[in-house]
Every structure is written in C-alpha cells, then in structure tokens.
C-alpha cells in the first residue's frame, strides 16, 4: 500500500480504464459504463492509501457501481443496453484479429451473465482466477467451472457461425 499521487493514478488509468469499461458493459450501456468507471476512479482518489491490489479493487468497485446503477435504472436497462450495443462496439476492429470483434460481442452477449463476467475479467481484465473469485465473491472452483463452460460455449457458437456464414 502507498499514497495515491497523480503519476500512479495516470498509470492505473492508462492500464485499466479500457478493460474496466468493457467489464462495466456487462451490465450497462456505453455512457453508463463510462460513468461507472469514472466513479470508480473518483472513489480511488478519495482513498487515503492505495488498496493493496489496485486492479482487483478497481474491478470490484466498477462492479458495485454498475450493479447500483443497474438497480436504479432497472426499467430502462434492456432497451438501453441493446441500443448501446448496436451503437458502440465493445472492441476495436484490427486487421490482424483472429476473431471479428462484432461477432465476438454477439457471442459474448449470448452467454449467461455470470459466465460472461468471468470471461471479461479473465481475458481483458487480465485477472487471475483467484482475483476473480474475490471480485465476484464466489468460490474459486465455481469461477473455474464458469470460465471453462464459457470458453466451450464460445468455441461452439463460433464454429456454428463459421459454418452458417457463407465465405
């Protein structure tokens, strides 16, 4: 643990803000996800000392922010999220990507929320399964099985879409 200065804050911001926003989009639309991430950084700055595991702390705070916002705006949730998903993609399209970003987003949206959360934290949040189990407050074995199930489902759906998509 140490004090929070502007340099460290800028470093954390550069390192985690994109992944945090992607994680928040598990529940929220683009703008609300951005607000949740901003709220998490605001909370981090209000801490006297930096948390021992800043990355896990940020993901957990974004999760709490997102769930709070979700409850507040329960009625508008589905409509907003669908609209937002159409408007702003989750991933930046790169020419050398092995998987199309929009396709990956579609497949991820078909997963159960708990599985999708673990995939987002693991692959783009770069958290260990132990850290994920702390963030989502679930046992390590549960997290592990969710992750494996999600990967299997993604693989299956990707293969299905490859078969159905004409070249």
């Amino acid at each position: 643990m140490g004090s929070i200065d502007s340099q460290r804050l800028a470093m954390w911001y550069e390192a985690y803000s994109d992944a945090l926003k992607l994680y928040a989009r598990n529940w929220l639309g683009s703008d609300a996800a951005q607000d949740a991430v901003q709220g998490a950084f605001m909370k981090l700055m209000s801490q006297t000392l930096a948390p021992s595991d800043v990355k896990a702390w940020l993901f957990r705070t974004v999760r709490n922010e997102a769930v709070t916002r979700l409850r507040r705006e329960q009625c508008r949730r589905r409509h907003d999220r669908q609209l937002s998903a159409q408007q702003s993609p989750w991933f930046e399209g790169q020419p050398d990507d092995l998987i199309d970003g929009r396709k990956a987003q579609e497949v991820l949206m078909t997963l159960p929320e708990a599985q999708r959360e673990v995939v987002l934290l693991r692959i783009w949040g770069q958290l260990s399964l132990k850290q994920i189990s702390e963030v989502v407050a679930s046992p390590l074995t549960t997290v592990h099985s969710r992750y494996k199930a999600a990967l299997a489902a993604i693989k299956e759906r990707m293969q299905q879409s490859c078969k159905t998509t004409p070249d």
Partner: protein
Amino acid sequence: MQDDTGLTPSEKEIEAALGGLRPARASLNRDQIMFDAGRTSARRLNRIWQGISGCLGIVLLVSLMYRPAATGVETASNAVASNVGNSLPVDAANRLRDSFHRERPDPIADYVRMRRAVLNRGIEALPAASPAPSTYDEPLTREHMGGISSST
C-alpha cells in the same frame, strides 16, 4: 494470465484469439476526473468547517436556552438554615431552623411586655434579682433599678 491450469489446447486457442481483441477505448476525460477529484476534496474540507461551526452554533444555542435562573440575595439565617438543611434530613433541618428563630432575643418585644406589666402592677412586676446585665440587651430587674437609683 497466470493460473490457467486445466484448460485444453482448444480452449487455450479460443482464449488467445479472444485476447487478441482490443477493448474499445474508454472515452473518459482524465482532466475532468482530476477536476472532479479536486472539487470533491475541497467540498469535503468545506464540510468539515461547516460541521465544526454548526456544532459550535448548537452549543451556543443550548447554553443560551438553558441558562440557570438568577438567584436572590440570601439572608444569613436562610443561608445557615439551608446549608444545614442540605446536609441533614428534612425534619432535622426544620427543627434546627425553628429553634434558631426561637432562641433569638427580641429586645423590643421584651421591653413592651415588661412596660405593660409595670404599668399594671407597679415595680413589683419587674423580674426577680439576677446578676447585673452584661449587655444592654438583657432586661432590667428591680434590683438593677434600685442599684441605679442609689448610685445616683
């Protein structure tokens, strides 16, 4: 990713392919975050001062509202009686207060009573002999009067 134990090669392949995707840039304004942080910090400092001044105001208000009432000037007898009364049971204090008032000499009343008796019954009404009064407060007797008249 550190602890990827138990994944099959095909699962690792999927993981790597997904990991190649870059999340869309968060369009957060870092300057805005810094500004908000500064504003929040200043607001917190203001709240501390507002809290302190509010507490002091409440203390002042309470002290003005519940000021003790002014007490009158105490006479010596009341003060003695009340002081005694504070340290003794109530009936003992009352008894002491009564005896205090009873034992106090009232020279004017004594004089009036004696004058009335002398006017009715003559000099015989004066009290029997006793030693000469040490103070002017003690009543005169017949012997005193005789002593006074013979000396003059």
